[in-house]
């Protein structure tokens, strides 16, 4: 059986800097896979490569046995791979309803797109209910709170019913209740969908993760269950080293330049 997604020795090089340095991994249909690693480990880059935002320098990406290399992003989406971004990016000038409806209409022919939306499709109404934005249907997305935008973005993903969902830090900045709701949603979706989630938070991982892949400096450090990953001395080394740095005030020297996010490292093992 071919894997749902397979990466083969994927290298992404930015002017010689290898953000992803020979990553091979295989994800089965219906899996809920977590991807962790310190800032700058190359997690986002991996999702970018799968979705065609960043070209591979070497290696291959296969979706259900078919190579995605060189396929434009919008066609990758049409094949059934949806993604979210680290910061929610909904269309601010459009209403919640139009954001969702546009997402839901992604398989329509251009000619059909020229028709006006009449009413709300069941799929859009359901999704709106799921993400708790039914009452805000006619508000422009620009007026939503940060959390609501995150949900809207997830809704736009779900309404497309992708086979595979790639989420980049979906619960960052969410309240504990929102996190729990997201975690449960992920577990509900797994099975029918194949899901890859980038997440830092260990508590969240412990509650919802089955299989975890740890990335470090562009390479896979380890792949296993949450317990295996947490007990692994290498992983502790990677995170603790950074946590110690952060505590002793060497935050600014973290390699990714994302110094502002350094406190994440402390949360990870707490």
């Amino acid at each position, binding site marked *: 059986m071919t894997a749902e997604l397979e990466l083969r020795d994927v290298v992404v090089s930015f002017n010689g800097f290898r953000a992803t340095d020979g990553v091979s991994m295989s994800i089965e249909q219906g899996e809920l896979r977590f991807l962790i690693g310190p800032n700058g480990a190359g997690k986002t*880059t991996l999702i970018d490569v799968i979705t065609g935002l960043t070209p591979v320098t070497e290696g291959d990406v296969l979706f259900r046995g078919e190579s995605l290399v060189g396929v434009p992003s919008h066609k990758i989406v049409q094949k059934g791979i949806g993604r979210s971004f*680290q*910061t929610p990016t909904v269309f601010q000038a459009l209403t919640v309803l139009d954001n969702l409806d546009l997402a839901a209409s992604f398989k329509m022919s251009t000619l059909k797109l020229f*028709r006006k939306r009449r009413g709300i499709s069941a799929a859009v109404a359901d999704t709106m209910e799921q993400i708790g934005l039914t009452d805000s249907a*006619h508000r422009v997305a620009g007026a939503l709170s940060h959390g609501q935008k995150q949900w809207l973005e997830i809704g736009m993903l779900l309404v497309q019913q992708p086979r595979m969902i790639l989420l980049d830090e979906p619960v960052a900045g969410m309240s504990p209740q929102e996190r729990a709701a997201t975690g449960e949603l992920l577990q509900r979706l797994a099975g029918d969908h194949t899901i890859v989630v980038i997440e830092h938070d260990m508590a969240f991982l412990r509650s919802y993760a089955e299989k975890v892949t740890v990335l470090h400096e562009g390479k896979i450090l380890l792949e296993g269950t949450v317990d295996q990953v947490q007990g692994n001395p290498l992983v502790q080394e990677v995170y603790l080293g950074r946590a110690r740095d952060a505590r002793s005030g060497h935050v600014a020297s973290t390699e990714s330049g994302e110094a502002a996010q350094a406190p994440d490292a402390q949360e990870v093992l707490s």
Partner: protein
Amino acid sequence: MTTTKNEYPDVSSLVDEKPPGEGVVAEADVTRDGYHPSLSDRLKTGWGRRIILAIAVGVLIAGPDLIGDPTRTRQWAEYLCYATVAVGLDLAWGYGGMLALGQGVFFGLGAYSMGMYLSLEQVEPGQLPQFMSLYGDNDKLPLLWRPFEHLWFAGVAAVVVPALVAGLVGWLVFHRRIRGAYFALLTQATALVFWLLLIGQLKLTAGTNGLTNFSEVFGHNKYDPSTPEFLYYLAAGALLVALVVARHTVNSRYGKLLVATRDGEDRVQFLGYDPAKAKTIAFALAAGMAGLAGALSAPIIGIVAPDQFAVLPSILMIGWVAVGGRATIYGPMIGALLVGVLKTRVSESHPENWQYFQGLLFIVVVGFFPGGLAGIWRKLSGAVSARLPARGGSADEPSRAPQTLATSEVAS
């Protein structure tokens, strides 16, 4: 996207920036004691829309009677052509974020299509237009000119050729991710090339002199006092068609896609849409409308010459949209009409000062009223509506007219 890596190097934010005031309106409309739709919002719903449209159509139809004078009527017909260009250009620029600085090319392609037909209308079948006997060494009509003996062909070509050219240019350019300032410069360059071509192809285009002396237009004598009125109604019809198409486009799903592409071209791809395609369609639509307007401008203005379609006139077209208000349906039309009227009035009284006046107008609008007339209208109507009674009751979950969702829309 806080990390810069997910964004393409983008110099375009300055020019592609979405029009002011979008995406932030709703919150301001909501107050503690209920939902206060602004006056312009009230007018946008159902009856308000129909009434505005009815008034607009009424004024358009009554136009020649209101104006009274054939010369002025002819001038208004000209402004109506400009308004048609502006309505189309706003699809590309206002809704699509493409700062097209070469719209004169498409206006010109339409004008030359009709200009060729009109030139041939003046002579017996089989004869050459006057200028050809001056410059030309051949005594047969050039191949390019032949189909333009037929009015239907000239009319269709005036719309289809600009749309096709824009479609082709757009397809190539947008798929190469040329946008923002680069796109603006590129379109401006096309205007320059077009101008040079027109001047260079003397035997086909009559060079700088252009095509003129249309005493007979579509079977009407140019000097007949009823002719301006006839041309006026043609131009008014074209404008109405453009408005209806633009309104339908903007309200359709494609219209939403276009706005989404304007505000997040990279993001749109991850919804599964090809942003280059979305932009190409709007650019082609805008070009088609410019071509239609150009075709009618030929008999109305009475001359088709390269200088009308050069770089400067193309930039002025953007000015019309800016004055009226980007990303609104009626704003650009009003902007073009207003600038047209002002131009005539000011240059009649102070011929040498019009250019300065126009420059000042554009500077003031861009600098102080980035939303144009539509923006001023939004502000004023917002102020007025604050004094009108609120709609709906409590505002603990403020939203835009949620009741319409609950009742009428969920059904399907």
